[in-house]
């Protein structure tokens, strides 16, 4: 991230941040800040709401309207804020466990309502802060503190889950593909409706060490080698797709009414306007 953006948007007294050496969360937060700067939004018109977990510490480092809330409940609190202040650009930072397990129900209902929030899922495939337990987004066949003989559970495709529940913008990038990640977050904020951007990122300490890929740069190189742009992914055979994942804008639709707009109509009707 450019130095001028650190100067402009960060609470510099809180740097260096507490994330481990090589943790991709810093890179993802940099992409969020760059996207907001590219959109030329006033920082007073932006809110960054987070839940609990390593990634959710991100809200403490940046000078927007921020709240580090309760585990899994970033989306409900962001929903409340958006209902009270529909003019505000509300971005939600959540981890894979925070968002898909503890807050899984909130995720599907926020998506169902199509409320204009931009959710950035920092997916490091593990519960980092609590010591490396596997999450619903840990792929099968990996070690975790709670799976010393390898995980056997299939993982969620969180974007498919959100899309099926009603999210109108789903996209994925990684902490290696920074320009792509930045542009997708930008598009997600500009999109009027529920946007979810999965940022695949590395946890060298709690995922890497247990799975013998502890070098942070190697985790990023893994993302480079396994993320496939959607256009290419669509032409690949199931065998070629094995072990890889699609990145880019995966789905977008603009034919669904956004929730705060629909609610405005209800307020007008309740106040006696003609239906």
């Amino acid at each position, binding site marked *: 991230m450019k130095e001028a953006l650190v100067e402009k948007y960060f609470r510099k007294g809180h740097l*260096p941040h507490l994330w481990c050496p090589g943790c991709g969360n810093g890179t993802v937060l940099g992409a969020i800040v760059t996207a907001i700067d590219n959109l030329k939004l006033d920082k007073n018109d932006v809110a960054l709401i987070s839940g609990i977990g390593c990634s959710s510490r991100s809200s403490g480092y940046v000078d927007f309207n921020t709240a580090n809330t309760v585990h899994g409940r970033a989306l409900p609190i962001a929903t409340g804020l958006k209902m009270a202040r529909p003019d505000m650009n509300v971005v939600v930072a959540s981890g894979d466990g925070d968002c898909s397990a503890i807050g899984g129900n909130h995720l599907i209902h926020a998506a169902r309502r199509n409320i204009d929030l931009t959710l950035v899922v920092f997916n490091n495939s593990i519960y980092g802060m609590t010591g490396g337990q596997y999450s619903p987004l840990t792929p099968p066949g990996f070690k975790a503190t709670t799976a010393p003989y390898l995980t056997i559970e299939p993982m969620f495709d969180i974007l498919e889950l959100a899309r099926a529940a009603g999210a109108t913008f789903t996209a994925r990038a990684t902490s290696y593909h920074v320009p792509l990640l930045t542009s997708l977050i930008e598009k997600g904020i500009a999109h009027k409706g529920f946007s979810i951007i999965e940022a695949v990122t590395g946890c060298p300490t709690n995922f890497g060490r247990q799975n013998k890929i502890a*070098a942070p740069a190697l985790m990023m190189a893994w993302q480079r080698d396994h993320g496939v742009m959607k256009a290419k992914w669509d032409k690949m055979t199931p065998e070629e797709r094995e072990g890889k994942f699609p990145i880019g804008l995966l789905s977008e639709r603009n034919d669904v009414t956004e929730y705060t707009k629909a609610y405005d109509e209800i307020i007008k009707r309740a106040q006696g306007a003609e239906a």
Partner: protein
Amino acid sequence: MALKFVTSRCKGCGICAYFCPKKVLTVTELNKAAIAEGKENDCISCGQCEMRCPDYAIFVEREAK
């Protein structure tokens, strides 16, 4: 070229050194990113280090046009 290091923030993860296309960067014994010996004039200001640094500890200083 000019690279600016904020060593107080650098945690020596080595991401900048790994992805530097010109192998300009290295991680010192003190676990900080630095310019490798003899590579002082090799930086092409591509910005890959600045873009991915998770700790906002390395910046490319571009000359004002």
